[in-house]
């Protein structure tokens, strides 16, 4: 077995330093935490090192550079299946199968690089760096964070370490280990404002909910281990090993993967383990951006994507389609549900949170469909089928990429808005202590018409929203269309998939609505109140990452043209190998807008119609509006605002009936799911545990105490026989004499 396999090919000298991608942030964690503990409040620490922010920054930069080097090496043709450096034999142990010998087993740590890895690696390290930059601008300028930012940076870098480690790990075990470390950091960061009860309970909720998923993941891993005798990718993805397992226990494998998928559901906040994500917005905005939009929630997707080799294995042909359906269906449900809840949210970050859930659900649906295709099509031999599978898988990964970039940006932008609204509020009310009375800087009620005041932010938000909505040619459009198309393709094969397919189509329209609503309510129209009118521009630390990400999002058309969907999904397609960029773009556009298959041709336009016209249209009708007089948005935003104003004027309708409907109430209450969970926790779990604790003292310890008190009362009884009267003693002697004599005589 994989055990202690030793390195094979080392491509470049520096590749041996790949573990530093993980280790550097991990060490930075200790350094920042320690220095912060010691030098807290010191001016140099505060001003020059930004309470650790400027220690984290170079470290994250180094991680990014090392990652890029690794990625470039991979793109040069490094196949990545081999380990880069000598594996650490982390745990050596043995098992006994009932025979006359024991088998030795080893769990090692190594690094595994393939196409999925490099994609996630880039996303993680790139976003981590940007968010680090953003954090310096965001965290260090808020007095509420004074003297505790070192905690933020320490936990932040540890989180990055966990994320990068999870991506780079060469086995499911280490994936799980880093996965849990991320969970810890998420917990700590959500609870950053520990003194707020809501933050404390949100942190607990996040950890616990994901923990429940993790439990299933762990069991799934254990089952998987038992099937393959290892958790190393190299072993479990080995065709021969899969064949062996497929022969005897394909059903068990499906169970194992299914349980692992539950872990992904928890981490990626899918129904029914989605409840933690909206609450997690209690953390500082960079945290929301990083963890709960851009990276950590992708871990679940990464895990599912990692399972692809099983679905694609010839030996398991047709064995795993049920699981593929479940993955797609969970995605479908969550996509619609989250989008619906997002309709009624007033909190800027919460809208984004639900949007995140919804978009992740898209990716799950996409992955589910891709896996169904891989599992049912004969794609190893049929090149058409091969193409279909690869594009389906690639589209999901591409959406992951696009969504990560766009959502990271959106959160940062929203953070910037909140930051400035907050400042404006302070400024306005000359509040010098940071008690926020009732003012909620995150509520869209307190915004409106900010497009002119924060042009870069507004632009970023606009581009990001467009990407999420899937407006043609921008960012997520490419991937989203792919997902929808594949869902329907599968639905043609297997009617079960009509459900997720309908969901994603519906979701497209809903996304269009709530994203537009968010943007319009924040940036268009007139300021909703005095505070919004006094918002000013942001600082450079905040602007820079927004700037960069705007361009990345816009440039996803280039990535699409470069065949991202192909090489991200399969090593057979190498980067830039197929066509030149222009050809690629033309090809993709042709594929998207002029599909030769009439079904998909129509589907594309239906999707575009729903996502780009119906959704935004309704939103504009409800929330569109001109900026306040004298305020001017940048030229590229003006058409949007004007359009919205026009639509609003022309098509405005009264939605009070909806807002007062029970459905809206239900949506505002998150469909009561949290409530049920809380009730279940309180009544069943807490109640049961109290009963058990009582039983422990009353019954188990009660037995002990009863024995004790019983023997005490027995003692009292026995001692009461010693009456004090010598007559009784003599009587006892006489009785004893009789008994002894009888016993001796009788026995003899």
């Amino acid at each position, binding site marked *: 077995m994989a055990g202690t396999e030793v390195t094979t090919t080392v491509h470049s000298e520096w590749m041996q330093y790949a573990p530093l991608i993980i280790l550097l942030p991990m060490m930075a964690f200790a350094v920042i935490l320690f220095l912060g503990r010691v030098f807290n409040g010191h001016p140099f620490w505060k001003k020059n090192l930004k309470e650790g922010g400027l220690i984290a920054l170079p470290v994250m930069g180094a991680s990014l550079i090392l990652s890029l080097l690794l990625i470039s090496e991979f793109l040069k043709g490094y196949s990545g299946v081999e380990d880069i450096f000598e594996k650490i034999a982390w745990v050596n142990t043995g098992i006994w199968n009932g025979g006359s010998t024991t088998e030795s087993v080893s769990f090692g740590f190594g690094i595994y690089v393939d196409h999925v890895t490099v994609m996630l690696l880039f996303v993680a390290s790139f976003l981590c760096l940007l968010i680090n930059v953003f954090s310096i601008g965001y965290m260090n300028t808020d007095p509420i964070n004074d003297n505790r930012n070192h905690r933020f940076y320490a936990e932040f870098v540890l989180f990055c370490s966990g994320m990068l480690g999870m991506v780079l790990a060469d086995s499911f075990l280490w994936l799980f280990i880093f996965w849990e470390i991320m969970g810890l950091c998420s917990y700590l960061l959500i609870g950053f404002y520990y003194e707020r009860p809501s933050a404390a309970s949100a942190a607990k909720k996040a950890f616990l909910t994901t923990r429940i998923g993790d439990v299933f993941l762990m069991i799934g891993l254990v089952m998987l281990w038992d099937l393959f005798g290892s958790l190393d990718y190299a072993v479990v993805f080995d065709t021969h090993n899969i064949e062996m397992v497929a022969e005897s226990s394909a059903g068990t494998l499906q169970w194992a993967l299914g349980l692992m998928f539950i872990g992904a559901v928890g981490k990626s906040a899918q129904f029914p383990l989605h409840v933690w994500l909206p609450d997690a917005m209690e953390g500082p905005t960079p945290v929301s951006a990083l963890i709960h939009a851009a990276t950590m929630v992708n871990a679940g997707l990464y895990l599912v994507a990692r399972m692809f080799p099983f679905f694609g294995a010839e030996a398991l042909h047709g064995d795993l389609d049920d699981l593929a359906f479940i993955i797609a269906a969970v995605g479908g449900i969550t996509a619609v549900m989250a989008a619906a809840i997002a309709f009624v949210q007033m909190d800027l970050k919460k809208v984004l949170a639900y949007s995140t859930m919804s978009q992740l659900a898209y990716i799950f649906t996409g992955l589910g469909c891709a896996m169904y295709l891989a599992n049912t099509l004969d794609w190893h031999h049929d090149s058409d089928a091969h193409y279909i599978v690869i594009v389906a898988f690639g589209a999901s990964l591409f959406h992951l990429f696009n969504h990560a970039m766009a959502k990271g940006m959106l959160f940062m932008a929203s953070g910037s808005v909140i930051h400035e609204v907050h400042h404006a509020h302070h400024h306005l009310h000359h509040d010098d202590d940071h008690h926020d009375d009732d003012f909620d800087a995150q509520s869209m009620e307190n915004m409106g018409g900010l497009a002119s005041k924060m042009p870069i932010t507004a632009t970023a938000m606009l581009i990001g929203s467009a990407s999420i909505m899937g407006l043609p040619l921008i960012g997520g459009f490419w991937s989203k269309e792919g997902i929808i198309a594949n869902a329907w393709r599968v639905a043609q094969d297997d009617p079960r998939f009509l459900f997720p397919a309908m969901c994603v189509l519906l979701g497209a329209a809903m996304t269009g609505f709530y994203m537009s609503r968010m943007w319009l309510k924040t940036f268009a129209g007139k300021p909703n109140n005095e505070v919004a009118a006094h918002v000013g521009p942001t600082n450079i630390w905040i602007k820079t990452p927004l700037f960069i990400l705007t361009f990345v999002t816009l440039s996803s058309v280039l990535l699409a043209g470069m065949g991202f969907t192909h090489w991200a999904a399969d090593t057979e397609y190498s980067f830039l190998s197929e066509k030149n960029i222009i050809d690629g773009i033309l090809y993709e556009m042709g594929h998207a807008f002029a599909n030769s298959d009439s079904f998909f041709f129509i589907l594309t336009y239906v999707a575009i119609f729903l996502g780009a016209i119906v959704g935004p249209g309704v939103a504009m009708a409800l929330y569109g509006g001109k900026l306040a007089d004298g305020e001017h948005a940048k030229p590229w935003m003006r058409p949007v605002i004007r359009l919205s104003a026009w639509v609003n004027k022309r098509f405005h309708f009264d939605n009070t009936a909806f807002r007062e409907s029970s459905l809206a109430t239900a949506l505002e209450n998150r469909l009561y799911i949290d409530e049920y969970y809380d009730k279940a926790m309180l009544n069943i779990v807490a109640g049961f545990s109290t009963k058990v604790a009582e039983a422990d003292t009353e019954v188990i310890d009660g037995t002990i105490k009863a024995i004790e008190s019983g023997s005490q009362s*027995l003692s009292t009884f026995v001692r009461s026989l010693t009456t004090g009267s010598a007559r009784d003693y*003599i009587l006892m002697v*006489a009785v*004893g004499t009789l*008994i*002894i*004599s009888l*016993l*001796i*005589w009788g026995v003899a």
Partner: protein
Amino acid sequence: MSKTTTIEPFTAGFVEALSPELILFAGMLLLILVPNLGKGTFRIPGTQTRIPWLLGGTRFKFSSDPRLPAWIASITLGSAFLNVLYVFSQGLDRVLIVSESGKELLLINGFSRIFELIFFGALALAAFSSMNRLQVKGIGSKIPEHELYNNRRQADFYILMVTCALGMSVVALAQDLFVLFIGLELASFSTYVLVAFLKESKVGVESGMKYFIVGSVASGVGLYGLSMLYLWAGSLQFSVLAATFAVSGTTALPLIGIGFVLVGFGFKVSAAPFHFAAPDAYAGAMSPVAGVLATASKAMGMIGLVRMLLIVAAPESSDGSAVWLVCLGAMAAVTMTWGNLAALGSDNPKRMLAYSSVAHAGYMLAALTAVGAWNWDAAVAGDASAAAVAVMTALLFHLVVLVAFKLGAFLVLSILESEGGASRLSSLGGLAKREPLLAVAMFIFMISLAGVPPMAGFLSKLLVIMGIVRVAVGDMGAEISDGGIYALGDMHWVWWLALLMVINSAISVFYYLRVVVVMFFNEPEEGREGPLPRGWQVRVAILACVLTTVLVGVAGDSLIRLCEMAAQSLNYNW
């Protein structure tokens, strides 16, 4: 084993053989004479000439010292003890003292010697530490003058101690049941008076009366049993009884007779249901006396039981188990459980120790029961007598070390008693603060009684359990190596006595620990915060007990060997 020398009384070798007893006798005479030495004169009748004859009258200064009797008694008992030790170190000869008509009277061997060791040791310690216990003028006393005792009362006390020792040693040596009985009565009468010695207090006399009256009934029953045995066998020589028993032991007369005799000894070892007077006696008597009752007196009763059960009604080698097996097993079970249960709720440390003494009697009876089953498995005859010896060794060892920690515990109580009573647990309160070393000593005694390693009490309990289990398991080990498969049901039922015994030890921890907790946790009682009464003698005695308890516990091998040798020298009939 060394050969037996047979001598008649007052012939050559008699003095050497009975030197400890003669020392005691001499000491007794000294105790009578010396405190009475004075300026007494004898007027020759008809004249005015007074011849000083040194008895009576105004005492000399040295003879009026109230500690003099204690010293004499201590030295007497101590030298008797050392004498026995010396005899042991010289190697033992078996000396049988017979009457002119050839009746066996006394047998001096390892078995009897080790009991003498117990008796003299216990009594010497008790006498030595009573020096502070019985108040004497002007020495370490906080008690008012009128409560002090004069030296003549002292002399009485110590004379009784020495006669008690003398009676006990006769019991140890006797080869004739009646001689044994005489010795027993001598010792008993002494203890009756010793228990009732505090005649100025209500509890003192009450305990004396109860102990006397119940003891008299028991010995009356015993004597009647003796007469039945005599009627049956025509002699009370152990050798004759044993021989007769082997022939016609299963008729009613001897069996009931043996049962009656057991009652007499059962009272001495305070086996249930003859133990009732014991707690009352211990509680009312002075602590050193109670200590003697719990150790030496118990050992004396145990001799009787051993002689009766193992020599006379010897377990038959043909079918193994003795006639009294069930009876004694039941008695052992009831005794140990009763004692422990009763001790559990007792608030009076002395009563608690008394009940614990009952429990210990139960353990010893369990050991004796095991000997009764020594030959239950015909297949294992080869090793069985060794098993019986092992149990006897355990029994002897237990009796020896009991002196150290049981008497030690009573001696600690005696210090508190001389301060103003030790009849409530709370009187031990705060002992750790008042005199830490004394509390530590008491702690050691307590855990030793409970059988917690590494104290002597653990080793003794271990030996007893080992003995029982050895008998129960028999030679299964060898059987197994020949291919048998054994389970719990294949063992003899005495194994369950061992289980009962360990469970009882667990119960016993409860009340022993309570003492410890009171000493180390509770505050001293009102008015008892000050230092304890002084007196180095009792503390030396306690120290000796502590050292014995600990040293035997960690290095008891030589004592085990000594006991084994003594156990082997018992003239079994098989």
